[in-house]
């Protein structure tokens, strides 16, 4: 039985949408609230504000793709659903950055892991970054609301063999592990969350909050880039948007002017500070784009005798926080351990090298596990951090500078991953670094890892969790927004996305963004008063 395309049905019922690639003339759109970005922050805000009776306009740079478009093919999915056609990387080209860019934002392509913001992170923000009112007890009800809304529950099905490596390795070593909560309903356990869910099981913004907003009479403008905020003193007076071609690459010459009473930026890390910088928004303390964090990721591959088939099954279902807080929240750089799904195209670039070396590694794909470490950057003054800049054409790029402190975390993470992989029965382990080959014992791995020159380009690094860059906090000298997401300088502008986080958070960020922006949106409804 074919999967019903919920979004296509809604459109047939009369949902109001505007396709920026097909406009016959320039357009002016008006709403009570204009929201830039349709991911976790924008989608959640849109649902809550439209339910309160406000007319919402949701603006998305990417295309509208729905379940019937999702063919589980890497080439097509990466080119159409990811920022810069999956080409996004740090300014030096050494760190691959995966962020969604389509209606639904990154929620459309994430791997469904849904964690509450860890309590030590919330406490650290209160203590070090003057964040008020978002302690663990104050946030708990908001996480609960969003968990219910999006079907978040620990994955009840046995993990696939790729995830099982974490469980069995940690069990042998006496390390802590746990089951990952996922935002799915009726999941088929296919493994293609990163290419758009073909069965609408993933409770992304595309099938939850955005339909709810459209049902309330809200409007969606897609394939339109919010180019700049129009400013009038300390107020935003409009947003100038550019229509894009169908590939979402080049402006097509059409302009859309958006007028609203209140404006919300929810383009995520890198893009939200990018709009502020392009708009020359007042920024007396030069905070926009500073302190951008990545949850920098390094990887370790392992070959097993048994079949792993790491391309099938829920991509992430087991994690280990054994090392996450091992030196306190602000001690040495520590990490959360998870696995990525391994489809051939992305895996070929992860495994590294070329020719025979790469071919031999790829030949073993069905027997290969890859583990990853999410390095909790931003808690220690010596941590690597990034700064968003504008390129010649006004597009944002992240200049992320590594430090010795951060490289030390990378090296320890290589050790931890190899140890767990061997404990789980790996025949051979490969830290993903240009100078490493597969080694057959933990002792060999330890010698290899200790000797690796940890440098950009030689070390395979990535990120799927851009956070920060428009930090919240009560001190305008440190933060772009206050703790309620209100821009410190512009009266009718809020930021509702992961760029608010003063540090990385130590967990996959979607539920943190849902919970926080749900709370900020409810407070905004109260401030804006009766419709």
């Amino acid at each position, binding site marked *: 039985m074919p999967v019903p395309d919920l979004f296509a049905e809604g459109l047939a019922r009369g949902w109001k949408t505007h396709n920026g690639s097909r406009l016959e003339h320039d357009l002016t759109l008006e709403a009570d609230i204009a929201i830039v970005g349709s991911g976790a922050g924008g989608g959640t805000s849109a649902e809550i504000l439209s339910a309160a009776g406000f007319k919402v306009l949701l603006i998305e740079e990417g295309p509208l793709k729905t379940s019937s478009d999702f063919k589980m*093919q890497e*080439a097509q999915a*990466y080119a159409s659903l990811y920022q810069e*056609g999956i080409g996004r990387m740090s300014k030096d080209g050494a760190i691959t950055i995966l962020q969604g860019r389509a209606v639904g934002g990154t929620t459309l392509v994430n791997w469904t892991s849904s964690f509450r913001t860890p309590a030590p992170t919330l406490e650290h923000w209160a203590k070090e970054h003057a964040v008020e009112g978002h302690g663990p007890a104050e946030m708990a009800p908001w996480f609960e609301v969003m968990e219910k809304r999006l079907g978040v529950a620990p994955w009840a099905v046995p993990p696939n063999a790729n995830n099982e490596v974490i469980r069995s390795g940690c069990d042998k070593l006496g390390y802590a592990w746990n089951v990952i909560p996922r935002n799915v309903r009726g999941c088929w356990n296919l493994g293609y969350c990163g290419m758009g869910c073909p069965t609408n099981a993933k409770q992304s913004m595309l099938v939850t909050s955005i339909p709810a907003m459209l049902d309330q009479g809200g409007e969606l403008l897609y394939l339109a880039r919010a180019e700049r905020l129009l400013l009038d003193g300390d107020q935003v007076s409009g947003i100038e948007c550019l229509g894009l071609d169908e590939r979402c690459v080049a402006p097509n010459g059409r302009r859309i002017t958006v007028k609203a009473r209140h404006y919300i930026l929810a383009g995520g890390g890198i893009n939200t500070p990018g709009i502020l910088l392009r708009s020359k928004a007042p920024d007396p303390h030069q905070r926009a784009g500073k302190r951008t964090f990545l949850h920098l990721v390094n990887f370790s591959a392992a070959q097993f005798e048994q079949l792993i088939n790491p391309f099938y099954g829920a991509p992430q279902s087991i994690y280990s926080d054994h090392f996450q807080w091992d030196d306190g929240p602000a001690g040495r750089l520590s990490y959360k351990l998870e696995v990525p799904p391994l489809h051939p195209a992305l895996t070929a*670039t992860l495994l590294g090298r070329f020719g025979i070396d790469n071919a031999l590694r790829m030949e073993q794909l*069905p027997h290969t596990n890859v583990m990853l470490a999410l390095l909790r950057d931003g808690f220690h003054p010596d941590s690597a951090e990034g700064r968003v800049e504008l390129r010649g054409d006004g597009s944002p790029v992240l200049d992320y500078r590594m430090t010795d402190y951060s490289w030390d975390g990378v090296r320890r993470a290589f050790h931890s991953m190899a140890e767990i992989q061997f404990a789980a029965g790996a025949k051979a382990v490969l830290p993903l670094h240009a100078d490493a080959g597969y080694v057959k014992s933990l002792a060999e791995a330890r010698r290899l890892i200790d000797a690796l020159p940890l440098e950009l380009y030689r070390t395979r690094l990535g990120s799927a969790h851009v956070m920060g860059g428009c930090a919240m906090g009560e001190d305008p000298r440190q933060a772009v927004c206050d703790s309620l997401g209100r821009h410190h300088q512009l009266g009718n502008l809020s930021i509702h996305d992961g760029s608010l986080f003063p540090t990385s958070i130590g967990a996959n960020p979607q539920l943190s963004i849902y919970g926080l922006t749900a709370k900020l949106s409810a407070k905004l409804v109260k401030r804006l008063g009766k419709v």
Partner: protein
Amino acid sequence: MIDTTVAPAGLSRRHLLKVGLLGSAFLASAGLTASLSGCSASMPQAGFAVIRESDLAFLRALIPVMLEGAVPPEKLPQAVAGTLESLDYSLNHLSPELLKLTVQLFDVLALPITRGPLTGVWGSWENASAADVRRFLERWQNSWIGLLKMGHASLLQLVMMSWYSRAESWAHCGYPGPPTV
């Protein structure tokens, strides 16, 4: 030593001047000045949206080296053609700034004046052996110039992703393909 006997790369002086920041950095680092004879500006090759005739010689030398061991020799010509098709699709969806950087990278590899000093391949790419290509890649990977390391990483990622996104590559890596929904 600059090889002046090879066929023109299909790039005009005017085009060279547009090579821009990356190209300028390459040129500066090689201590060279541009003095190419005029040829017609380079357009996408027929059948491609982005890849130009001037890019093909290099890519046809590079791709077989990248795919060695993953493709039986008798299937290599089709694999190269397929990889080029997928690569063109990817390039056509990159952001304009990233595409610009990639095109500059290809220019630097195509122009004899930059190719020789920077890659160590002094003759044309058509005549480069697999060993020449491997030496060039190793040289860039271990270069002290960040841009060359970045170029090396980009080439590996672009080519490997392009090939392994294609169904005909999957038998080698034991991937049965996506399930039916």
